[in-house]
């Protein structure tokens, strides 16, 4: 994933709007889901992502050539969300939150401010996920690939494989569970390595 980014960074630095737009198209959805996981509110999540892209446009000249765009965008979004959650308590909005929502926000803040939130945004994230996909059981892997890489709907996959939609859903859930475990193990190893260095 390093090489294409090199070209993109160059074009971006030259102020190419088309490239900026294509970056926006590619990562807008990803970052929105990521932000919403922490800030919960849809509107706020949208704001966070917009700020991220504004920031990218502002600092594009200072980007180093070997920046990985995806992890860079994740990091800015993380900072935006952290800032938002940090100051939410003094916000007028906070008073109107339900008790459950307040607890949720405080749990999310504690997760997002932890080391693992930064460590997990690794340069090799996509490779890591691709590698983890390889370890899925065959049927699970096939279904997951059809869904994620070929962008087929559950119904289409079900028809093609002659299975029920429910089965497809279950297999995708199973895949996600295994992938999550893989990512967690990976992060644990990184954190342990770092700790050993000190």
């Amino acid at each position, binding site marked *: 994933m390093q090489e294409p980014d090199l070209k993109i960074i160059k074009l971006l630095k030259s102020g190419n709007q088309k490239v900026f737009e294509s970056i926006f198209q590619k990562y807008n*959805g990803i970052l929105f889901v*990521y932000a919403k996981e*922490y800030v919960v509110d849809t509107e706020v999540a949208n704001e966070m992502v917009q700020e991220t892209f504004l920031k990218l446009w502002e600092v594009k000249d200072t980007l180093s050539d070997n920046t990985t765009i995806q992890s860079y965008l994740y990091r800015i979004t993380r900072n935006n969300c952290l800032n938002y959650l940090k100051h939410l308590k003094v916000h007028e*909005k906070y008073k109107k939150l339900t*008790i459950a929502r307040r*607890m949720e926000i405080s749990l999310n803040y504690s997760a997002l401010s932890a080391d693992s939130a930064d460590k997990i945004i690794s340069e090799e994230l996509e490779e890591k996920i691709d590698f983890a996909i390889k370890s899925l059981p065959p049927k699970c892997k096939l279904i997951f690939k059809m869904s994620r890489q070929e*962008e087929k709907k*559950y119904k289409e996959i079900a028809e093609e494989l002659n299975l029920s939609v429910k089965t497809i859903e279950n297999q995708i859930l199973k895949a996600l569970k295994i992938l999550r475990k893989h990512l967690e193990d990976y992060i644990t190893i990184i954190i342990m390595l770092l700790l050993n260095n000190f």
Partner: protein
Amino acid sequence: MKSQELITKYLNNEASQSEIQELKSWIDKSEENRNEFALQKNSHALLASQIATGKSNSEPGQILVKNRAGKKIETSLRKIYGIAASVFFPVLLIVTAWLLYTQYQKANQEIYTEFIAPPKHNSQVILSDGTHVWLSPESSLKYTNSYGQRDRTVELKGEGYFEVEKNPDKPFIIEMDNANITVLGTSFNVEAYPEDKLIRTTIVRGSVEIASEKLFESMVLTPGDQFTFDMENNNAYVEKVNTEIYRLVKDGLLLFKRNNLSEICRKLERWYMIPIEYDDTGDDNLLFTAKFEDESIETILKIVNETIPINYKYINNQIKVEKMKKQ
């Protein structure tokens, strides 16, 4: 519940308020727990975002796709309007005026039906789509003749138990002072007496969504959830309760569901049409749950007395109820 189970539920957005509370106290116990939770939450967030990249299966992706499509439609419409406006402006004006006029006429023709349940009975109302409502005494249900056309909207004052016929295309909406409940098909109880400044809904089957300008975001409730919205203190909370007793409303019984003394008095007042004077100062911590079939108010007060010690007497066609002083 095991911590892993709690975390998984939380990550899947399925944790209730009390489960979130439980998780929070588990996390606060040790740094290790905190890191374990953070790791799982962060992995989950990243993975969810990676999987949801505009793929048509995932919901957030779908929302984004829709937004984009929505924008496109909007701009092309605007173009069309632009051309149309310049060429056909006078025609448009007439058409618009005519449309507004017919709309206005229609609005004036709107007919509504209102049911008011008599005292001493739960009244059953069956709506045109097969939805059943059991109204508590003196509660009212109002709907217009457009019920079932685009959606199914009713207005509720008081208390009702609902069994809503499933129809995903036409959501069932209950309008109350200060809040709305939206349902697709389910059974649940609603209490919304305007004078109580309190809305309480209990879900028996299915799920409902409650929205209010006084709530930050709408909330989805699932079976066993009892949502209470205290409008005086602007406080909303969800509790898990046993819902078995709510099914009995259908049998026309007088029910008390974890009610305190002041709630009992107000309910008896509505049921028996007798003014009840009750001084509700002091604590009202004792709760009373019971069902009655065709009993006199004296019998009920006697039985209440077994749980919540009270004195009561008749004075000029009204009943005076007092809490017994502690000995």
